[in-house]
Each structure stands twice: as C-alpha cells, then as structure tokens.
C-alpha cells in the first residue's frame, strides 16, 4: 500500500487553479521529494493531504484514509512540519514538549531525549529566543517524538542559511535511523532534496510532470552532446523525448529523457550519422530544471 495516493486532484481558489488534475503516489518507506518552483501547488497539495483545506475535485488518501476524513486518530500518526510553522513562542522547548506529549499515546520519551541531544536544543530557552533554524528543529523534533508513520515536511529549508540547512538535512537523515517512517518532503530547493530523496515527484502549474524513483530518473535522463564534425546539423523531426535542444556551431546538445544504453545509440546514429555522440549523467537539479523549462514557452531565437 502506498502511504499517499492522489488521483485527479484539483483545487481552485476563485478563478485561480492552484492544483489541476494532479495524480501522485508515494510509496511506503523512504523519502519522497515533491519538487516544483514557487507557486507550483506544493503547499496546496499538502494542505489537502492534511485535511486543512478541501479539494475542489478529485481525491487523495493518506495512510489509506481519505484526506477529507483525516481526524485525530490519523493525525496522531502523521508528523507535519511546515515553512513558517506557527509555534507557541511564549513556551520554552521543554514546555512545548510537555504540552505536546499528552496528545500522542505513542510519544517516546527516550526518543525525545535522544533527539534533544542530537539536535542540540536548549530545553529552557523560550521559543521566541531561538533562531529560525532551531525553531525548525524544535518543530521537527515535536513531530518525530511520537514516531509518526508519515512525516510531511513543507518547504523545510526555506529561509535557512546553508549551514543550518545542512544540519537540518543531516538531522532528517539521522532521525530516519530511529524509525521506519515515510518522509514526504516538498521543496523548490532541489539541491538539498537530492541528498535525501528516494523517490521524486515534480509538479509545475499545479500539474504532475513526473513521479518516479530517483534512481530510475537519474538513469533515464542524460545530457547528450553531438559533434557533427564540420557538417551543419539538421534539427527537424527530432524525437519528442529529446528536450532542451541547442546548437552551437557544428555541435548539438540536448537532454534525452528516455535514455537507455543500446537503443539510444541506434537512435543517435539514425539522426546524426557519422557524428561523435557523448552522453553525460545529470543531477536531479539539472533534470528538474530541464523539465520546468521544457514545459514553458520557448525563448525567441532558439529553434528546436
């Protein structure tokens, strides 16, 4: 069973479509990264999943329960940390933990103590006196201490400096050793997520662009460079899976989104006979940017 299932989800705010016909599935276990630029619909999707807002149409289920029916019982199994998380700033770290504990029957005092040490949080300091990074750690800690089956992180790196980001990512990785939970993390900060994600979903303009494992994604996306050795390239009738096609002199560069050793070589030979073809692996960031750009209007002066 998938931890999260989203089918044809649409959410409209007035005349604005925040999420349009979105479908995603998040496998149980591991870390799923939902990537997308600002305004892509990530936060709206998460709010629907957490039953904080209702979908206009479509449906989503979390841990096997319809998102619109998520109640206290389900919420006790979901940890949720959001960007600009509202915390009771008048409390100290200790008071916050004492306040949260009775709400969760599964609260693990040993894990709480271990996380306090790991995150290096000052127990007696008021939350209003903590830095933003520390506040995020407190929020993460209060969400982990009851061993949720699903941890939902909405833009957790937003506004954090590189050092704190690194600590935070490290914290998530180390915390994952304490339990076997599914982590659903949304971010526009692809570089940080790259270190974490097992599975990737990409949305843009509220629509699904991609939903597969990071491993498969890295395997099938390749940056291709073709050296035509003095001849002028003919860029007509190129396959649809070749994205971001560019030409510099007698060289052609593009991203093959269906790269597979063997079949790809034959295809290159058919389009560029006698050319020297080089294929290079891509990072998740490069892949995402290619997808976002290919989905938008082609700039003037470039012919695909």
């Amino acid at each position, binding site marked *: 069973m998938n931890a999260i299932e989203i089918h044809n989800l649409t959410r409209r705010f007035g005349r604005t479509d925040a999420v349009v016909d979105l479908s995603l599935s998040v496998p149980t276990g591991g870390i799923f990264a939902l990537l997308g630029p600002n305004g892509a619909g990530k936060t709206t999707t998460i709010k629907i999943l957490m039953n904080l807002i209702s979908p206009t149409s479509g449906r989503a289920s979390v841990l096997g329960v319809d998102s619109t029916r998520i*109640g*206290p019982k389900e919420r006790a199994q979901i940890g949720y940390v959001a960007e600009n*998380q509202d915390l009771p700033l008048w409390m100290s770290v200790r008071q916050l933990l004492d306040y949260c504990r009775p709400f969760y029957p599964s609260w693990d005092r040993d894990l709480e103590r271990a996380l306090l040490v790991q995150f290096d949080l000052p127990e007696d300091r008021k939350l209003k006196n903590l830095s933003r990074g520390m506040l995020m750690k407190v929020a993460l800690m209060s969400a982990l201490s009851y061993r949720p089956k699903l941890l939902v992180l909405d833009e957790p790196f937003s506004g954090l400096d590189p050092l704190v980001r690194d600590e935070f990512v490290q914290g998530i990785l180390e915390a994952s050793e304490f339990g076997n939970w599914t982590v659903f993390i949304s971010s526009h900060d692809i570089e940080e997520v790259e270190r974490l994600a097992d599975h990737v979903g990409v949305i843009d303009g509220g629509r699904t662009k991609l939903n597969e494992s990071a491993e498969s994604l890295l395997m099938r996306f390749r940056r291709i460079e073709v050296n035509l050795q003095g001849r002028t390239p003919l860029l007509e009738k190129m396959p649809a899976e070749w994205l971001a096609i560019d030409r510099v002199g007698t060289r052609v560069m593009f991203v093959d989104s269906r790269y597979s050793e063997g079949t790809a070589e034959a295809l290159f030979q058919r389009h560029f006979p006698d050319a020297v073809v080089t294929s290079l692996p891509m990072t998740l960031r490069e892949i995402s940017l290619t997808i976002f750009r290919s989905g938008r209007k082609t700039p003037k002066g470039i012919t695909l």
Partner: protein
Amino acid sequence: MRLTWHIVGKDMRRFWIAIPLLVGLIGVKLCLLDGVFHLEISRDMEGSMWRYQILLMDAVLIFSFFVTVAIVQEDPVSEPGAFWQNLPITRRQLLGAKLLSVTLICGLPAVLALAVGWLAFGLPANRIGWPLAVISEAQFASCLAAFAFGGLTKNVAHVVFWIIGVVLAFFISHLTIEPLLNLRSLVSPGTHFTHILLLNFLWVIGCLAIILNQYLTQLRSRSIVLLIAGMLLAFYVAETERTRFSVDFLSVLQPAQHELDEKIALLSADVVRAELVKQKPGSDATEMLRVSVQDANQGLIVSPNNYVGQWTQSGTAPLPVSAKIYRVRDRSLKRAVEQAFGFPSSTKTNSLIFGAESTIPGEDAELLGGKSAPYQGQIDLNVQRAVIDGQMGLAKGASIRSDFGEARIKDVFFDKSIIQVDVESEFAAPTHDPGWFDSIVALGAPRSHLEGALVNTKTRTVLTPARTSTGISVYAYGIFLVHAKLQFVLSQAEDQSSSLADWVIVEVRMGENHRSIKTFKEDVFLKVVPAIERDAAWTE
C-alpha cells in the same frame, strides 16, 4: 475531555495574569458601588464614586473583550497553519477548550472578587454581590462578540479593523438609508424594549452562529456572510421600530421646529435670569428657584441638570456648595405640547421653577435660603426639542407604545376639579446602572425620560401634572417600571364644561442630554423674593 482540559491548562498558564487584573477591576468597582449605597459621604464624592464605578465597568468589559480575543487567537481558526492543527484534536474539542478557558479567565474573577471582599474586608456576598449578575451579563455579551471576531481574524489589529468596519457600516447605513426611508423617530409601533430584546437575541444568535461555523467548518467566507446577514438584520430591526406616524400634530410640529432652530441660535446668556422664591414660608424647607428663558417657548423644553454647583456669596471667595435641584414645575412642557398641537401660546417666556432639595445640609440650605446677601451660582440648562411619543384617550386600558416602552392607563378618576390618571409604564433605559433599586418620583415618571400632559382637544388647553402627582419607580437591570398617579387640576371654566372624552393624555420625552439643542452653563443671581409667586395650577 482530558485533552480539552489540557488545552485549558495551557491557556490558563498563558493568560493567568488577566485573572488578578480582572479581580482588581471588579473588586474596586464593587467596593465603590457599596460605598455609594452604604457610606455616609458627600454628594460630590458620591457622584465621583458613581462615575468611577461606571468607568471601571467599561474597563472590565473592554479588558474582557481583548483577553477573549487573545485566548481565541492563541489557537487561531481563521486560516490553516496554526500549531493546533498539527495536534490530534478535533475542532469541537478546541471549541470546548476555548469556551472553558474564556469562562474561567473572564468569569472566575467575579467570584474571586466576592471572596476577597468577604475574606479581606468582611463584605458579604449579599451586600456587594448584587451587581455581579449585570457584570456577568455584560461580560457575556462582550466576550461572545470577542469570540466571534477573534475566530474570524488573525490578530488584535485585525479585530480592531473589523470592529471599525462594522461600526462604520452601521453609521453609513444610518446616514444614507434612513433619510431615504423618510422615517421619523418620534413614534414606533413596537416598544423599544421589545426591540432591545430582539437585538440582544440577534447579538447572541449571530455571534454563536459565527463561532460554531468558524470552529466546526473550514468555511470562513460563510462566517463573513453570517456577520453581514446579522448586521443587516440588526439594522432592519433597529430601523423598523421607527415608522411614520400619522397624527396631525406632527405636521404642525415639523415646520415650527425648523423656525426654532434659527431662534435658538439667537439665545444668549443674558436671557437667562434666576431668582429665588419661597413657596411656603415657614412650612417647607424647599426653596424655589425661578429661571426664565425668553424666546424659547415654541416646542421646546428647558430643563436643568441635577446639580447646582459653586454657589458663592457676592463679593466673597467661592464656596463649594452644591444642592440637588429638581424641576417642580415649568411652563416649557406645557408650551411644548401646545405648540405640538398647534394651540396658541399665551406668553413668549418660559418660566421654570426648580426646587432645591430640602435634604441639603443645613449650612447649604441657609446659603440657598438667601437669608443674607444675594448669591451667585452656576446652573446647567438644557434646551431640547419636545419629542411627543404619542397620545391616548383617558380610558382604562388605553396605552401608548413608544421608542422606549409602553405606558398604560390603569384607572381614571374625575371629580370635576381634578383628573387623576393612574399610569403604569415600562420602558428600557440603556445604562450602566447595575442591579435594581426603587425610588419615589415626584412627577409620576423619572424627570429625565418621560412626562405626561393632558390636552383638551375641544377647549384647546394643556395641563401639566400638579405637584400632588406621585409615582414610584422600580429599576431593574435596564428596565424601569413606573406606577404613577398623575393629577391634573382643572381651571374653573374647564371644571364646568369638561367631560373625560374631551381629554387626551400625551407622552412627552425630554431631558436626554443627547437631544439637547443648546446647553447653558450660566451664572445666575439669587435673591429673596418676599412674596410667593404661585402658578395657577399649583394652588391645589
């Protein structure tokens, strides 16, 4: 329930400071009220204590309002993202917790104030506890509105913004819609009391609807629709108590009052003259003060404020002497009614006679008695339009329903020289005064609110109540109940020819400060007038 109390505990830790502050405010208010009623203090001090306890009541209400807003916004429900939404609790649990928190933090202090009063000062609950019902009632209304506004908004600034918006909406509607409807505020088909009850009901139901919707659903827009619908209903209810009244005298009164505006502008300080006259030398300690106001006779009522302050003997330093005065008789009421009915006025001067209360301390009484040199003082006079609420025939069971309540004739006696009308009135008086009290009133109804006058439609004469009229007024939580025996002395001519069917009794509203057209604060000179000047109607 355990989790609900857990949230209440958190709120109590957060807002505990509000409890001692409210205990202090309520405690001081109760002590001031107790002082007013049980301590032997000067009138000045009594007045100050009364004013301060009203201010403290306002402070309690405002403080409770903003504490409630803070409690509600500690866990806001106006939009997603609040910390409580991460917790495994239902919206119903949160609502229950917030209701309990507000009840405990805003309601507990009243009980604690009683306990402190008893333990520290030996004041038992039956002595200082009686205003608590009113405090709780007002707090309930204030906190309910705060709960609704707090639930709709994110912070205190938003709440203030919303309140200003709501008040402005009412004000603008009042300014723009009411003139279009051409409503007159003189008469209403229903009582103000009924409308007050209806508005209170709307207040409670409206706030509860917004609170329940805001907490139990995610539809904030529906809450806003409920708020607007509630406001429209309240506006409708407030406006429908005023409707066109078809009695002829209004058409007479209306143009006359336009003319009066110009005349009133010409009124100046030197038209006010006062002189002290003795009504019954040697038999009555009450001293009469006659004030004449020239050129203010048409449709106007001139009335004094309660206190005469700073009376000084001429040529000496000021002496802080105050004396409570009340209106015994003046012709402005009579003239106002005559004007309203289009009867001819006999004189252009309004003569008012006020009684300086006989219970003033002896020293002050001597001063006012004018046994030595003339005295100079200051007197506050209000000049007001007569507002005639309606009329009724002199028949048992006849009634007048006005903006503020209802007056009903219980019985009528007519012995050819005196007409006595037993009237029972019930009307609402929006006020801070808590609890209940009763008093005997001189003219059958509290001077500042209502007066009755008798009009003979055949002979076109107007009589105002004789001094022998009596009444008892009972005040309880904003409602006055008045039982009055109004006596009207007939002149010899009327005595011969009158029958009850010729007379109607009209109810005139007067004395409310906000209706003042002009307020005098004038120096007046008192002097002894050796002869008694009696009004014909006085000679009972």
